[in-house]
């Protein structure tokens, strides 16, 4: 194998005419069917607990057996491998007096289970991750041990990027803004915020973000993960308590761990348990000394990216006020993509953003940029600017990214191209609802809230992940499959990330193929428990495509 075929080649797209390029990045809607205006959720809807559909027992058993076989085979593989193929297992055996980089045990899952399905992950791409994504072809060798790249590409329908509002574009207002700042500011900011890295653009962006989310002030950080991971140590210590939803993102956990605060978790979305926990913790106070906690911070995410569920904000605000706790809401996935005007979960529930102490979010998803923000009252932000590590030690957000944030934000609120922002929001709302209801009617088990742009569809058996991913790729659809440890062990799933850039026709195409693959892989396991009329759903695909676009605009089909 020639050396250069082992590396991902640069695959510059062939030049194409402007219209095709535009269509590839953001599809034009043929008519108004594909629009849906979200309205604020009423209190009754908000407090409803989602009913989670469960697969039949034999599927659960099969899934466990599936894992059991994989684990047993893995151990056999390890046993013989480490004795007879020492060279190939250099990474897990001691060598020349050095411990291996990682132990056999802690890497077992990665080496023996994940490697088998590695082909579904980290697919190199090229070009704009818009309506279509161009995947660089690769050939797997020796069970995904290494790949070769023949240098060709495949263009797929993109259900994998967090491009909720379709701002990943190579032309248009955002891109022009980014290009302009390259001319004016260059591509680097020069140093930490507190020394040299603060620019007019940065100040303006923070102002706009604060206004958009409805807080007094905001602070922009250059990386979303780092926003959380280096946030909590600015104001929490080991005498503070963090009450965290069990499914919170790793960045929050890392940040809290760095701060040294005590952590208690509650079952995902269970507000009654949360209240019990808060009461118990206020009474008990700190461990050993039983002194009262200095402060209690409740950490939740607005939209959970693996489940598609929303935090129950009205209840959270009520609890936080009742017990004098502080509330932190991570809107990484919901900001921009949810709510009548894209202002995130607060708007979805009609909660006043002022009732939430800390609003955090990222620009990677809906805004097609990078980085994150923290929005609070001005006096809090002022203090955070002094005490947080990121503004004082790390690189600030580079100017082109700031420009992208500004321009996309202005588009959403209608300052640039009035009407475009609304259309984008209405399209993602429709697309999400259509796909969700369509999948449910076809008989799949789907998790999450009606308007969530993340649509997780359950696969269960680990072996079905590579099968589904590859079969979809053959049908020119790029999807993301997720497994343990991001999900519970048996609930492997595929996660469709919706985007405004897709048209209704794209979703028709998607539904047809998912339905076909679902039949082949036996994925239609819906028991009807979570559907509105409590009946088992196994609609014919033509029927789904004919009726769902209208039906999905009616809330009643999403209530169970």
């Amino acid at each position: 194998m020639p050396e250069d075929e082992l590396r991902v080649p640069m695959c510059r797209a062939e030049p194409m005419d402007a219209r095709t390029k535009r269509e590839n990045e953001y599809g034009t809607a043929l008519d108004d069917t594909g629009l849906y205006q979200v309205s604020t959720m009423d209190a009754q809807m908000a407090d409803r607990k989602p009913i989670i559909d469960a697969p039949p027992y034999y599927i659960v058993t099969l899934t466990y057996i599936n894992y059991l076989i994989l684990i047993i085979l893995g151990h056999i593989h390890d046993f013989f491998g480490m004795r007879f193929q020492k060279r190939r297992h250099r990474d897990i055996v001691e060598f020349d007096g050095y411990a291996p980089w990682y132990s056999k045990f802690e890497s077992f899952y990665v080496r023996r289970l994940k490697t088998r399905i590695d082909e579904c992950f980290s697919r190199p791409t090229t070009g704009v991750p818009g309506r279509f994504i161009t995947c660089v072809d690769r050939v797997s060798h020796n069970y995904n041990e290494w790949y070769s790249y023949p240098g060709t590409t495949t263009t797929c329908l993109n259900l994998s990027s967090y491009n909720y509002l379709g701002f990943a574009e190579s032309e248009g207002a955002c891109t022009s803004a980014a290009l302009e700042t390259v001319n004016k500011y260059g591509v680097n900011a020069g140093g930490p915020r507190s020394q040299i890295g603060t620019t007019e653009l940065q100040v303006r962006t923070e102002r706009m973000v604060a206004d958009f989310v409805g807080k007094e002030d905001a602070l922009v950080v250059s990386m979303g993960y780092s926003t959380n991971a280096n946030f909590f140590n600015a104001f929490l210590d080991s005498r503070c308590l963090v009450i965290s939803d069990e499914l919170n993102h790793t960045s929050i956990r890392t940040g809290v761990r760095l701060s040294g605060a005590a952590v208690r978790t509650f079952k995902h979305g269970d507000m009654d348990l949360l209240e019990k926990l808060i009461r118990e913790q206020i009474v008990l106070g700190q461990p050993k000394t039983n002194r009262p906690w200095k402060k209690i911070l409740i950490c939740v995410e607005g939209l959970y990216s693996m489940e598609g569920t929303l935090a129950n904000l009205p209840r959270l605000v009520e609890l936080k006020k009742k017990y004098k706790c502080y509330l932190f809401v991570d809107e990484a996935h919901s900001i921009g993509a949810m709510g009548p005007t894209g202002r995130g979960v607060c708007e979805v529930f009609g909660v006043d953003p002022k009732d939430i102490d800390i609003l955090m979010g990222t620009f990677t998803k809906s805004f097609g940029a990078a980085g994150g923000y923290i929005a609070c009252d001005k006096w809090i932000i002022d203090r955070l600017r002094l005490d947080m590590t990121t503004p004082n030690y790390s690189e600030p957000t580079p100017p082109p990214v700031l420009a992208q944030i500004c321009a996309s934000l202005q588009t959403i609120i209608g300052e640039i191209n009035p009407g475009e922002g609304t259309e984008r929001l209405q399209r993602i709302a429709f697309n999400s609802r259509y796909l969700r209801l369509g999948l449910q009617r076809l008989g799949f088990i789907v998790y999450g809230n009606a308007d969530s742009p993340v649509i997780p569809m359950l696969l269960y058996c680990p072996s079905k992940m590579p099968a589904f991913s590859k079969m979809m790729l053959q049908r020119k659809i790029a999807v993301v499959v997720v497994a343990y440890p991001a999900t519970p062990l048996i609930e492997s799933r595929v996660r469709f990330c919706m985007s405004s850039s897709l048209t209704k026709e794209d979703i028709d195409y998607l539904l047809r193929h998912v339905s076909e693959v679902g039949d082949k892989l036996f994925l239609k396991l819906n028991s009807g428990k979570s559907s509105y009329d409590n009946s088992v759903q196994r609609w014919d695909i033509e029927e789904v495509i004919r009726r769902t676009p209208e039906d999905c605009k009616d809330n009643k089909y999403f209530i169970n």
Partner: protein
Amino acid sequence: MSERIIPTAIPIPAAIVRSSSAAWFYLNQGLNAVPGGHHVLNYIEKSSHDDPYRTAIEAGLILYGIYYYLSKPQRKRGLQANRPNLTEREKDALIDEWEPEPLVVPPVNDHETAERYWRLAKIPVVENGGIATYIDFTRNNRQESFEHVLNLASNNFLTLSQTEEVLDVARDTINNYGVGACGPAGFYGNQDVHYNCEYMLSDFFGTDACCLYGQDFAVASSVVPAFTKRGDVIVADDKVSLAVQNALQLARCTVYYFQHNNMESLDELLQQLNEQEKKEKLPAIPRKFIVTEGLFHNSGDIAPLPELVDLKNKYKYRLFVDETMSLGVLGATGRGLPEHFGLERASSIDITVGSMATAFGSSGGFVLGDKYMSNYQHIGSNAYCFSASLPGYTTTVVSKCLQIMDADNSQVKHLQELSRKMFYFFTSRVKLNEYFTLTSSEFSPVLHLELKEAVRAKRFGYTRDTLFAELHKLQGRKVSDVCIDPYEAEEMFLQQLVDDVLVSHNVLISRHTIVLKQETLPIVPSLRISCTAGMTEEELLGACENIATTLVQRCESA
């Protein structure tokens, strides 16, 4: 039957005999009904015949097992075991009574706010971007404004990314890839440009592989915890920067410190640890790392790599070097610390952490190392797998810069020339050296000026050690508002110096901005003067002359 089970020789109360024989009777019946049950019966009969107490213990164990299984494990966990027995009324009262501290330390009144937040007012808000050699900026909410100021505060040392050649690449990438990558590396977020940037970086620095991260500050604190767990050992320099300190905090292993760049101290420590390890007779070798920095972020001096490599080979440690400030700066062609000492990177340093936001003038960070280490990060390193990929243009900018550096090292040479000139200029100023210590090396483009210990003790009444002791005490008490007055006074004094230089000579230098409450190692304030390859020697030395004069004047008058 009961006589047979419980030997009469031992006196047992009749009630127990009766109840156990009843239990035995029903168990007998039950087990006989189950296929294979008679094996169990045989076992129990035989064992109790030989030793009835054994049966009792076994039964007890089984019962305890059932009890343990049914009890809620979460309630037992934690240190809050001493839960008081309170009635609901009492609980309500306690809950009602509880007053939390404010989220962050609140400003008391306007006057105090101004005093406490003077740092915010001193942050320059640059109009044309902080990387230009001459900048226009405002401060304190546009109340002060400055024009055409010489910028001696930028970390963009090589200024390569400002050239039209590189900007064209950035524009071209944005035109073809948009801005954001819209996904984490594992899910279609890594584009061909990211992969190729990784190849370029690893080829340029001579390692197997490379791994890109979204922000330089987050790299170390994600990589170190990925490769350490309880029982592993880290030996770290005691002047590492906060990024590395955070990494050590997050790594669950045992951390030891050796004296800053003191190889005897390190040798002694490693010797001790090795002996200790031999005594412990561990089942497997723990992972062991020496952690240090290339150019120290807090002081600007250089780690003695050859000695470190000798020691690491001698004691079988792996070497972790944070080269955020030194890549692109040290070595004849900017290949960093190993080139500076004439070593190969692949054979001397096991994990290199670098930044694309300093010398390469883009954004993001990266890790260089062998392929096993790199591959493992793809799944084991949190900041890599749980965060979105960098925007495409940042990677092509770096690739282009590397290409330019590979072909022509004149920028690097020019920068080193300037650094040296600047260093010798300041060391030669006798007056200045009465007040300030120069902690940086002559190769560092960032010059750190610390007040002399004696001057600090005389003027502000504290030393590095007393400050650390005080800080440590406050941190131990978990004080929310860490504010140490003498330290504040010195910081303000240094800012005054910065302002003087700015106002009288239109030159921007900066304080070394640190967040004292986050620091876990001894540190003192310093001034920071950084040169970039975009300047001419005359510009720089002229400014240095002015800076030196102003600093001396100010120190003498105050």
